[in-house]
């Protein structure tokens, strides 16, 4: 089934660098897709191309079966002809208009009657729970309120697609979390197709039906929050989403019953090696891998406790109590690893430990 929004082969260049380099994806109707990546990865440029604010060098953008950009045919629909709504990073609330006038603007552009505008604005302000602030001057509002005005303005015209450009990045941490739930609620309620750009992984995981991780103008991986976290396909994704330590290794053997279960050989500086059982997507014996270990996928044991299997030895380099957990940085012969354990666990710095690695979760990623 073709998506409601389709992007095909999108490329955009700034000077000599390709900000967006052959990006294709689609968004199903009513779903929210998050474009996630570090700054400069091309996510905002992709969004701006969809909105018609940038002209791509090649590619097509199709909304509901209709081309809005088709470089091969020199078709670039003007932004105002695309039927979209947008929440900008700076909210972009027009300072010379009241809240009502800000929200009414898209409707005025659609040449609706005065009465209809009044009703629809009221409706939209109710949705964002700003019902009684219509007469306020836009600049008198707090950051969170401005954010909601921007949202009301973006949905009031019943756009086909809603674009979010890092809408929460200017809010303080607490408000950001609150607005995250709020945005999600509204999107799920009015079932509008939305594309959401952010560099904040927590925001992305909370909001998106699906996530698209971008890096250096290309798509790294696409999937649900859960699959990106648990089954990263590249070390970039593993590192960008959540926290991970990486250990270089080589695949020694593959389980004959389960070809996703492998044994890898780690090698330290002295040439001594130890073995570890982990998972792998496409294993080939002898290939080099990076074993991805998330801090909570490791259990720490004292040196004298009797545990067997899948162990790496090391010494606690630093440890700090963080309330809900204690974080330890452990020196191993294969490099430093970050480990999270129960908040009350106590290991002293310099103490020798054994680390039990979860064979079902830790994953060997191919390296080139």
């Amino acid at each position, binding site marked *: 089934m073709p998506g409601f929004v389709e992007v095909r082969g999108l490329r955009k260049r700034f000077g000599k660098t390709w900000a967006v380099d052959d990006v294709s994806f689609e968004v199903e109707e009513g779903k929210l897709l998050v474009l996630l990546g570090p700054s400069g990865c091309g996510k905002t440029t992709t969004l701006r191309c969809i909105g018609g604010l940038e002209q791509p060098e090649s590619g097509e953008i199709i909304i509901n079966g209709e081309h809005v950009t088709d470089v091969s045919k020199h078709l670039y629909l*003007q932004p*105002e002809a695309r039927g979209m709504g947008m929440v900008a*990073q*700076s909210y*972009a*609330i027009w*300072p*010379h208009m009241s809240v009502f006038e800000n929200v009414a603007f898209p409707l005025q*552009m659609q040449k609706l009657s005065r009465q209809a505008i009044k009703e629809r604005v009221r409706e939209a302000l109710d949705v964002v729970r700003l019902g009684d602030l219509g007469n306020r001057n836009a600049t008198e509002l707090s950051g969170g309120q401005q954010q909601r005005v921007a949202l009301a303005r973006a949905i009031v015209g019943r756009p086909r697609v809603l674009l979010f450009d890092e809408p929460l990045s200017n809010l303080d941490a607490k408000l950001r979390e609150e607005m995250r739930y709020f945005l999600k609620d509204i999107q799920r309620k009015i079932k509008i197709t939305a594309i959401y750009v952010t560099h904040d992984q927590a925001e992305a995981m909370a909001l998106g039906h699906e996530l698209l991780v971008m890096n250096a103008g290309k798509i790294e991986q696409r999937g649900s929050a859960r699959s990106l976290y648990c089954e990263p396909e590249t070390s970039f994704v593993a590192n960008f989403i959540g926290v991970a330590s990486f250990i270089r290794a080589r695949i020694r053997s593959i389980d004959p019953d389960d070809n996703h279960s492998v044994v890898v050989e780690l090698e330290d500086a002295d040439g001594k090696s130890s073995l570890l059982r982990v998972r792998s997507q496409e294993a080939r014996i002898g290939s080099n891998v990076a074993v991805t270990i998330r801090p909570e996928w490791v259990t720490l044991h004292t040196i004298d406790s009797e545990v067997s299997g899948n162990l790496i030895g090391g010494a606690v380099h630093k440890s700090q109590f963080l309330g809900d957990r204690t974080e330890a940085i452990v020196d191993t012969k294969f490099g430093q690893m970050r480990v999270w354990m129960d908040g009350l666990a106590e290991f002293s710095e310099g103490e020798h430990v054994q680390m039990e690695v979860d064979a079902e979760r830790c994953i060997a990623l191919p390296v080139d």
Partner: protein
Amino acid sequence: MIDSWLGRRVASNLRVETLVYWATAILAALAILYPAWMSVHAAFTEGGNFSLGGFSRMMQHPSVGKEIATTLLFASGATLGAAVIGVPLAWINARTDVPGRRLLEILCVIPLFISAFVGAMAWRLLLVPRAGMVTRVLTDWGWPPELLPDVYSITSMIVIQSIFYSPFMYLYTVASIRQMDPSLEEVARIHGAGPWQTLWRITLSINGPALLSGMVLVFVFTVGTLEIPMALGIAGGNYVISTRIWTLMSDYPQDLTMAASLGVLAVLIAGTGIWIQRRILGNRKFTTVSGKGYRARRIKLGKWRWPAFGLVISYATIAVIAPLIVLVLVGLQKYWAGAFRLELFTLDNFRSVLFEYDVTRRAIANSLIACTAAATIAVFMSIMLSQAKSRRGEALMGLLVLLPIAIPGAVFGMMVLFAFVRTPIYNTLYIIMFAYVIGYFYLAYRTIYSVRLSIHDELEQSARIHGATWWKATTRILFPLLRPGIYSAWLMTFVVLVREFSSVMFLYRNGTEVMSVLFFLLMERHSARLAAFMVIQTVILLIVMLIFQRLSYRNTDTMTI
């Protein structure tokens, strides 16, 4: 013990800076209010008694009514014209990807560095009936003479005034547009507004306050200017209030009371302009709520890139290039025969103006001395005044800065004359310096104050805590940090003072002529020599401008006027 000793030291040091601030502020206030009072007094007094004679003669005067109407037409026309020119230029430079922006940005402010009087004289040479360079060419091409623009008409006055005052509009608007978050426009596009709707409903509306401030400034300047009304108006029979005041003050029989009454009227007109601006603005200041670090995205003009470039260049041609060329050409001729003739080529005009002709040499010296001294004093005053730390201090400063702006230039010259007519400084260069400083220190003040605002008090305070006295902290910490502001404030003030014409016309005497005044005195005599003289002034100003540009290229648009 130590505590109380420290306490005393801090207290006494604080007193020094408060004292310096208040002394300067009160002096500055007196320097404005005393002349203002003297001229109001003059307007209502005759023969030592209260009288409305000046006003009644004004009402009965056969032409003053028409002159007031002309003034209003001239001022509002020039205000609109300056906006129509300056705002598009600002928008092109600030928001589009027009080619050669760096050059265009400089070209758009150059007219500021050329006296409008000089510009008007140059255009007179170009457009004068029969002998004008442009008129001749047009006539040769068969252009019907009745359709030739009349350089002495009120329309020409308005157009030329608009051209030379549009940089003010440009500077106000460009700064404001540049501060605007481009997302404000983009979001409008996304939500259904076309490019023109966006320009009108978003860009121009948001920058409305800045536009209005610029317009009010041009309006007040124009109400009080003598430059174009003297250069073109008198010859065309178009008197305005400022030329009438000047005539009443300088021609026999003088009527000082009526002149003062007209001055009061001019201040009222200017005040009305300011009042209307405040009414429209109310308390609104569209401080754009900007996100952190948005990129300044420019509008892609596509096929309009070069037409936009051409537009800016043609403005520069009309305002700067053509006038300068004609003045240089005329200056290089033995006498002006309506066109450049190789056989009349000579450097004598430049030589005589610079080295032989006593009056011009004296005027150049007078200008340099008076403007250098006045700019320096104005900068020092501004540094002292920018220390205002209390609310009361800032309110007083607001008034001090507003007053000289609100008083039209010619009226200000008259006021200073009234204030000092019976003192020893009358007839000296000091009275001109006084008018320069008091009339224009707000230029220096605004620049320095805006830099001062960006310097944290803590920097100075920590110097004090580490043992520096107030004077040490000021000279070692504050001055160096203010230095960029000081340079640009000084240069800016200097340039404006060298051009200044309207107020000095009331204050010069034989021997204290400055350059701009001498232009007027030589106006009807030797046009080739006058042209050479004007070229020399313009060259001085352009050199100063180049230095200015060097020192503050990165923030040309922040020079506040």
